């Protein structure tokens, strides 16, 4: 697979991706020069808004439908080790950059009044987290990618540890970091093996993603690399059975952090960006295993979610199910499946996080996320209930919402791959609907069981703004998914061709 590059200077005239990474850091430094907490909040939000506008400028200048790497920047970094500073986006990654900026802005808005403890540090950590996340999505050098991947842990740990809402936040933060480190060690090994293979073939080291795609990898090495990388990405996903950190982190961590953990599917992105295209034959050979894990996750996540009374826990398990469904889409290895997986990830970034925000608003009022023990919330906070329902419709993939295109395409892809897989995936979709609707019924309809519910105030203007933005996105993307799909189509097509092509000619020659 040869990916052409369009440089940032050709396309837009300035290194926009570098700016997207550096800007939040600079802004974080400015933030720390301000004394007044209120000004800090406003400045932080202004920064997030600027960053979001910048990502939207990038999206508007993005050329859809082609597989080229766009806005590319390439600078030599550690030449002897073959490590370069190489940035760029294509159809696989382009959507996640604005999504990251959008979610960060929403998290900041939602934390306006709920974060009382050291707001300056909180917003600083969020901005750094934003920078590293965007770094992950735009890096095209594997070492650079890994640097951002690890840096991501620092602000995450701090956010979980210091602003967590649960009594065991220290344990949750530690568990999170331990899991992540356990996953990233094999990932690093996989990256190194790819570099060494490049050395074996060409005589020089390289960790450059487009370069590595042009170098054939022997079959046995492919399998090893695939499993090393798959382990790292599965933990991050989280893909069943590596998911246990997520529920803990969501229960103990701050609302903002749980939104980012659920909303940004870094693990699935890793599979799609690196694990599958770099070692396509191994990915093809072991696709059955990934799909099997995927469908198990779909059913398992929804079943466990079904019995939860706490919305954060429910979201954690539902998220495990959604990651499973996205993995099924990715490893169907057809255009529909992969496009569906991308749409699904985008939808989770909006729908799941929308629900978590609303749960967070209730948590701020009542001190509990055990919504289902309340009952009758609908009568007392009707606006919140309405938004909860609308966003929930996207969560379960009802047509007309952003959840439908992704789910539909993944099922379409899965049916194309194997009917049994699709049948189980459909089962998961049903359970997912049951999970949300039954939870909604318990929490929002029926008689009120706690007096605390009666005095609740409905959404405040700032909260209503977040909910309405989420709701508008849910319906907007749901009705007009095609512009988004056309952005991803070129790159998805390239990945599918890469995986489905015959084994590399060199291997054939060798056999002769």
């Amino acid at each position, binding site marked *: 697979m040869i990916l052409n590059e369009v440089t940032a200077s050709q396309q837009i005239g300035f290194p926009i991706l570098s700016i997207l990474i550096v800007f939040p850091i600079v802004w974080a430094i400015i933030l720390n020069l301000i004394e007044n907490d209120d000004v800090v909040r406003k400045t932080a939000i202004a920064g997030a808004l600027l960053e979001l506008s910048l990502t939207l400028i990038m999206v508007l200048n993005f050329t859809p439908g082609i597989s080229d790497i766009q806005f590319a920047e390439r600078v030599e970094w550690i030449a002897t080790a073959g490590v370069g500073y190489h940035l760029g986006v294509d159809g696989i990654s382009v959507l996640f950059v604005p999504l990251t900026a959008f979610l960060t802005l929403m998290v900041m808005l939602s934390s306006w009044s709920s974060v009382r403890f050291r707001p300056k540090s909180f917003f600083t950590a969020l901005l750094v987290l934003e920078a590293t996340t965007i770094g992950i999505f735009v890096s095209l050098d594997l070492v650079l990618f890994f640097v951002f991947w690890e840096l991501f842990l620092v602000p995450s740990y701090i956010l979980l540890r210091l602003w967590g809402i649960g009594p065991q936040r220290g344990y949750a933060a530690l568990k999170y970091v331990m899991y992540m480190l356990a996953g990233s060690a094999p990932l690093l090994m996989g990256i190194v093996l790819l570099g060494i293979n490049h050395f074996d073939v060409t005589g020089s080291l390289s960790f450059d993603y487009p370069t590595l795609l042009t170098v054939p990898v022997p079959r046995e090495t492919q399998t090893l690399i695939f499993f090393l990388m798959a382990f790292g990405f599965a933990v991050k996903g989280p893909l069943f059975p590596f998911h246990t950190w997520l529920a803990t982190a969501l229960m103990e961590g701050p609302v903002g952090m749980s939104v980012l953990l659920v909303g940004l599917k870094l693990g699935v992105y890793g599979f799609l960006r690196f694990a599958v295209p770099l070692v396509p034959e191994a990915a093809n050979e072991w696709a059955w295993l990934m799909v099997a894990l995927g469908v198990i996750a779909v059913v398992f996540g929804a079943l466990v979610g079904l019995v939860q009374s706490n919305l954060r826990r429910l979201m954690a398990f539902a998220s495990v199910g959604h990651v499973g469904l996205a993995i099924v889409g990715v490893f169907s290895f057809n255009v529909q499946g992969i496009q569906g997986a991308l749409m699904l990830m985008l939808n989770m970034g909006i729908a799941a996080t929308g629900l978590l925000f609303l749960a967070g608003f209730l948590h701020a009022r009542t001190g509990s996320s055990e919504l289902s023990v309340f009952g009758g919330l609908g009568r007392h906070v009707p606006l919140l209930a309405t938004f909860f329902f609308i966003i929930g419709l996207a969560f379960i993939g009802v047509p007309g919402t952003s959840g*439908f295109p992704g789910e*539909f395409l993944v099922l379409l892809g899965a049916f194309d791959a194997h009917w049994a897989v699709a049948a189980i995936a459909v089962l998961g979709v049903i359970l997912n609907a049951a999970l949300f609707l039954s939870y909604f*019924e318990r929490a929002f309809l029926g008689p009120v069981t706690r007096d605390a519910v009666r005095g609740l105030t409905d959404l405040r203007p700032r909260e209503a703004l977040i909910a309405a933005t989420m709701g508008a996105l849910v319906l907007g993307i749901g009705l007009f998914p095609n512009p988004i799909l056309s952005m991803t189509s070129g790159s998805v097509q390239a990945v599918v061709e890469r995986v489905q092509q015959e084994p590399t000619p060199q291997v054939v020659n060798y056999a002769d």
Partner: protein
Amino acid sequence: MQTESIAPLLAVVVSLAGAGLVVATRRNPNLREGCSLAAAVLQFVVVLTMVRPILDGETLHFKVLSFLPQVSIVFRVDALALLFAITASSLWVLTTVYSIGYMRHHHEDAQTRYYAFVALALTATMGIAFSANLLTLYIFYELLTFMTYPLVAHAGTAEALAAAKKYLLYQLGASIVFLLPAIILTYTMADTFDFQPDGVFPAGTNTTLLVVVYGLFLAGSAKAAIMPFHSWLPAAMVAPTPVSALLHAVAVVNAGVFLVLRVIFDVFGEDLLRQLHLDVATAIVASVTILMASFYALRLDTLKAVLAYSTISQLSYMILGAVLLSSNGMIGGVIHIANHSFAKITLFFCAGSILLASNKTKISEMGGIGRLLPVTMAAFLVGSLSIVGIPPTAGFITKWFLATGSIEADKLAIFLVLLLSTLLTAGYYFRIIRTAYFGSSPEEDGLSDADREVEKGHAQVRHQVREVGPLIFVPLLLSAGVSVVLGIFPHFVIELARLALP
């Protein structure tokens, strides 16, 4: 012949805008109901503008937007679509007038919500009628479920919420478990979502899989209330009467039948059905539904429940007619969409009128009510004659076509089913009519003649049972009138049905 036309989009948008206006004018009930009525009338007019081109043999097309790379949201109006759309939009006008009378007289809560969601339900219904492909249909079909859910739950009581939950469970469950896989499997086999008059599947498609897909479609159209997916319909009778009218006549159940007819005519096609013997299988299922529902209806005492089971059995008439696969049979099935709707809406309007006037819901309590509500019960009589199929009402035309169709198709068993079910239907409707006209009111039971006279006077004073008002009795007289008109001048509907056949 295909013509580009924006009319189908307009029809969809009119009610959507209507919903917006209803919400915007919520502070002024008169204006709000005015907007609702204006939207209904306008939609009806828009639908009527499409009649001429369709009768000239054209189909109207409009591409709304490209949705996924494989498929767009496209509207296409053919005769079948038009028949469904005319039925729905004309009945929406009547229902709106009736609703104004009913909701105000009954002092219902949340009337703005009611009018808004009815308008949205009509948007979904028009979308279903005009869908050019399975995906478009699926989207609007699901939309209809969610737009009618708040209507079923309208009262907000535990019973209403339970019924609404059952409604949602059946609709959503069936459409995710059966309909969605059916659509996806159809695409993987036929490589298209578009409806095509001779069916979409290429020759040589795996027949086992085709049978499975057909079964999934049939099970997935829960709105058609084919047994065993019917029990949401009787449960939903807790909703206010105008909502029942919407469910039973205007939109919901017709949407289910419409989906089945589309699958039979435009996804599988006549030849494939016959070749796979699916026509016989469907006919058996439909016949069982017809007879079982009629037996149920015989034993029930709540008027709306009887009507609900009557609907279940009548819907299967439409499906039964279609799978006869003879031209008269199919015409009978298709025209029954209109004929049944006008009759059934009359009956529900009457049930509502009785409730408003006398607060009675049980047949056994309605003794002698025909003498107190002469207009209502006259309309009820016409409606039930039409359902039973007695001339000069529209129902007779249906029965005529179905009966001749079954003979034409050489299926004597179906002819016998029709005969038996007609007897049963007559049985449960004439029970109601006999009670209403010739029964004695419950207060009079067990009294001597002298006391009875005295009690009668008291009863008159106590209940003051009389017709509620023109907003109630005008719509029901009109719909009853249409049932008679369609029985005497059935040409227009038959012509549409003839054009709708594959």
